[in-house]
């Protein structure tokens, strides 16, 4: 190839290489292009408006799902129920080492409760 000394020469050589790569596309690629073209032509037979509404359907479904989620998460009086769900302080309590020790002494705390009840009965 000759060294491109000007703009036209660069464009000409690039065009020759490009055209060569287009002409030597493999059969599998050409087949997929053909399939794509027929899919596109099938659009001409679809009634106008179907594809437009079809495109909006997923967005509408997502919007409806978000609305339902918000309504469910709010109580009947408009107070956010989500605040009653697990909070950061709950996690802190669960992760404290003392809490685990407390689970081991459950029988002891149950005994304390019974003692308290008996004491109150005696007082009453």
């Amino acid at each position, binding site marked *: *190839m*000759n*060294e*491109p000394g000007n*703009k036209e020469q*660069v*464009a000409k*050589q*690039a*065009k020759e*290489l*490009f055209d*060569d*790569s*287009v*002409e*030597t*596309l*493999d*059969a599998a*690629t*050409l087949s*997929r*292009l053909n*399939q*794509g*073209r027929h*899919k*596109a*032509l099938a*659009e*001409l*037979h*679809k009634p106008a408006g179907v*594809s437009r509404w079809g495109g909006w359907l997923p967005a509408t479904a997502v919007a409806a799902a978000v609305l339902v989620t918000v309504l469910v998460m709010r109580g009947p009086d408009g107070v956010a129920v989500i605040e009653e769900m697990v909070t950061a302080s709950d996690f802190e309590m669960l992760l404290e080492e003392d809490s685990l020790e407390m689970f081991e002494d459950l029988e002891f705390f149950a005994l304390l409760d019974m003692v308290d009840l008996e004491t109150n009965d005696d007082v009453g």
Partner: protein
Amino acid sequence: MNAAVGVFAVSCTREQSTGAGTLQREQQLNQFLAEVERRALRIAEIAVRDRDEALDLVQEAMIKLARNYADRPGDEWTPLFYRILQNGVRDWHRRQKVRNRVMVWFGRGTSSEDDYDVAANTPDPASRPPDVELQTHEAMQRLEASLHELPNRQREAFMLRTFEGLDVAGTAVAMGCSAGSVKTHYSRAVHALRDKLGDHWQ
């Protein structure tokens, strides 16, 4: 009775003419797409460096053209088609940027360019001597690499003007910019390519 028959006949004639019109339009569009699809694929492939992605982009552009612009005059199809395709390529690049950012955030920073398999995307060899085939293949590789190093707008202008043969006005429509911008982008692209490829194209 005669009036009813007359109305029916007019109705049938209208339907026939509408059907014939649709068929003719379909044939014209088919011819246009068949003529442009291979160049469009290579242009998209050079831009995104992935044949499968390029095939998807071209198919999407063909569908959008048929869906929205089939009624437009045939001479408007080329710039419109490339406008749709270039928008698709730009969206693809945006999505890749976001994807790469997310992958980096998760510690899996990968670039689509690293995944590009040049050998797998090389066109089938034509019936030419191996040395000529190799020379052509290497020259195309260098050209693609140089085009990929250009800023997007310069690459678009160069490919639409040179590869597709659009004039300045058609390229401006396809790129969604002014004719003056097209001239500037194209001129800069050619200068850059001459600097990059000048030593190799001998």
